[in-house]
């Protein structure tokens, strides 16, 4: 590995961490799309800042563009407040307009600006190591490393300082204002941090992919845990590993680094989406199937409880009466047998003591519909699952 390669990976990893931290809060606050809006609408800010400073990494440009991001949020909220359109429409109206202005500004000044539309969408991570940070001739490493490093350190410090406040205002805005922590200040603080991060990362990964770096690690982590600290850690891990994995994939395919970083993120998300232990697709489908069987079992037991007649309790009658398919009836019967709920004699099904007890409990719950009755029953259901 050459030095530029290490530097690129370092920058990518830092960008990933800096994006993942605000991303977690955006996802939890159901504001993920705000990051999309910000990342688009900072473009005019970036372009105007570039006219002034002629340097994509200058702090002035970052502040100017971040201001555009905050203005977007304010604008969206102002439009929402008029009540003329719904919230999401307000977002959808503001950012394309601002982004268009940015694109047109770039197109009209294509000769004066070393900024093209591809760079806007993709960033230029591969060139990042060539823009060095020099102080009186001394080479201190790539500029964007310094910029993103500073942003990351600020974010981390703020996170540690305001962790409790952020947590409470994210999960319970009412409680937080009762405790004297203004949710509005937290909101705008988070928005400002996100804007600054987006602008800083813009240079490296481009306008749209920064959204992926914010949302995807957080969403992936959210599928695996419901503990805020764990979620933060996991999303950082996902972000960094996809960033480095993406770099090598791009190296191998000879394609855009940020594109392949996103692709790796997408693959990670897909894997977690499918296989996450309790919230993944497969787990959910399996659980739904089990619940269906359990409800069938309950129906069946209630049916047995209701009928003493022999013909109603005959094993072949099940298919006709409850209109189950063969496989399903067999699953249900097996389940009931396994749990000693029923006995089968001469093809006649009868409830055992345990089955009767269970059915009575279930009936009581159905009649009174009180939650305290369902709790012990849930444990019984666990018994089936085991």
């Amino acid at each position, binding site marked *: 590995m050459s030095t530029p390669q290490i530097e690129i990976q370092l920058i990518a990893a830092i960008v990933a961490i800096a994006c993942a931290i605000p991303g977690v809060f955006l996802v939890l606050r159901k504001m993920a799309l705000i*990051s999309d809006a910000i990342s688009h609408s900072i473009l005019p800010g970036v372009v105007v800042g570039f006219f002034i400073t002629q340097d994509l990494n200058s702090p002035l440009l970052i502040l100017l563009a971040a201001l555009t991001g905050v203005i977007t949020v304010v604008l969206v909220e102002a439009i929402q407040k008029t009540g003329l359109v719904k919230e999401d429409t307000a977002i959808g109206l503001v950012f394309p307009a601002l982004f*268009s202005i940015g694109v047109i500004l770039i197109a009209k000044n294509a000769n004066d600006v070393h900024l093209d*539309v591809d760079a806007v969408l*993709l960033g230029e991570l591969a060139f990042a190591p060539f823009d060095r940070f020099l102080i009186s001739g001394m080479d201190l490493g790539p500029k964007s490393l310094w910029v993103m490093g500073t942003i990351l350190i600020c974010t981390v410090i703020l996170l540690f300082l305001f962790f409790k406040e952020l947590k409470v205002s994210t999960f319970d805005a009412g409680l937080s204002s009762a405790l004297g922590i203004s949710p509005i200040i937290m909101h705008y603080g988070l928005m400002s941090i996100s804007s600054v991060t987006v602008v800083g990362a813009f240079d490296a990964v481009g306008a*749209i992919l920064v959204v992926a770096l914010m949302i995807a690690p957080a969403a992936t982590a959210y599928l695996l845990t419901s503990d805020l600290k764990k979620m933060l850690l996991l999303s950082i891990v996902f972000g960094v590993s996809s960033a480095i994995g993406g770099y090598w994939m791009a190296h191998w395919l000879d*394609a855009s680094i940020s*594109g392949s970083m*996103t692709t790796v993120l997408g693959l990670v998300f897909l894997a977690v989406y499918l296989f996450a232990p309790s919230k993944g697709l497969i787990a959910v489908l399996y659980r739904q199937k089990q619940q269906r069987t359990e409800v069938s079992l309950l129906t069946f037991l209630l049916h047995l409880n209701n009928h003493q007649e022999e013909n109603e309790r005959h094993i072949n009658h099940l298919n006709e009466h409850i209109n189950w398919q063969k496989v399903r009836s067999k699953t249900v019967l097996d389940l009931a047998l396994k749990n000693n709920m029923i006995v089968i004699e001469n093809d006649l099904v009868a409830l055992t003591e345990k089955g009767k007890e269970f059915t009575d409990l279930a009936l009581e719950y159905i009649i009174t519909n009180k939650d305290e009755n369902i709790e012990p029953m849930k444990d019984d259901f666990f018994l089936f699952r085991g």
Partner: protein
Amino acid sequence: MSITEYFELLFTDYTLRTITLGTAVLGAVCGMLGSFAVLRKQSLLGDAISHAALPGIALAFLITGAKDTNVLLLGALVSGLIGTFWIRGIITKTHLKTDTALGLILSLFFGFGMLLLTFIQKQPNANQAGLDKYLFGQAATLVEKDVWIMAIVTSICLGILLLFWKEFKILLFDADYTKTLGFNTRFIDIVITFFIVLAIVLGLQTVGVVLMSAMLLAPAAAARQWTNKLSVMVFLAAIFGAFSGVFGTAISASQNNLSTGPVIVLVAAVFVIFSFIFSPGRGILFKQLRVRRNRRDLQLQKTLQFMHEIASTHEDTTHPHAIKILNNFQGFTKKTLKKLEERNWITLKGQNWSLTEQGFFEAENLYNQQLNNEHTAN
């Protein structure tokens, strides 16, 4: 070429006519279907779908190796639909919320698309140039065949829209009721979503993946301000869409190196701003005027109420009083007095005022809205 030249050439030049017709049709169909997206609170679904279409275009090119628009758009359609259904899967099967799902699919698919595009650019295939016009759209690449396809798809959409108008409308406003009536809501829902995806895919060539969502939203959001009736809204949105398409193309054609997408979006945004401010029913301007008028009326009534209090101490309610005694009450100016006189509630004589019979009645029933209304109705 200036804009006036553009419109002069419009009727003589074949290419210009094709392009203009194309963007007009596109704007119309986007506005039409966008109305449903906006009313169903799916505004940002369009954004996600249009971004999600990008890998489809790239993959279609990689597989066929040809740059036939229809094949590429077919790829876009497939990948847009996959994106849509994945979003749905994430929302229904996991606890991730709508916004997260949209943002995820949008950025992940787009990133994958960009990866493929940069990968294609490195391929030794001379044919590859120009795929990136799908990012921001280039109306100049429209040919007559594309316009025909757009027109056909639009008329099919319109036909089905009219055929199932009732079903679409009822699903839009009361999904539960629709279900109880026995309609297959799932099916209608899928049809609408499919149409929205279709409209987006049609627009990719002209407006591009990045800004296509605005094309869907803006005309509909503008039309919403002018009416509360679905049919009128759909019609207006189609017109707004068509006009922004035509104007946007005209402006971008009259300038050098301007993609059509951003210009069309900005024109549409102007429509939206205009509608937000000037629409008579909901617009900000008229709303503000109404608020002002109400406030003034309230002030007027306050003065009247005060006069009523003074007048009712007299046996003769029309007995004149000095204007001076109103002084300790701040709600009156010369203007309010004049207004009150205009309404025939008081008469002014020199430095005195007196309530009229009508004014007294009005003041008595000030807090009795119903009576008040009846009175004015009579």
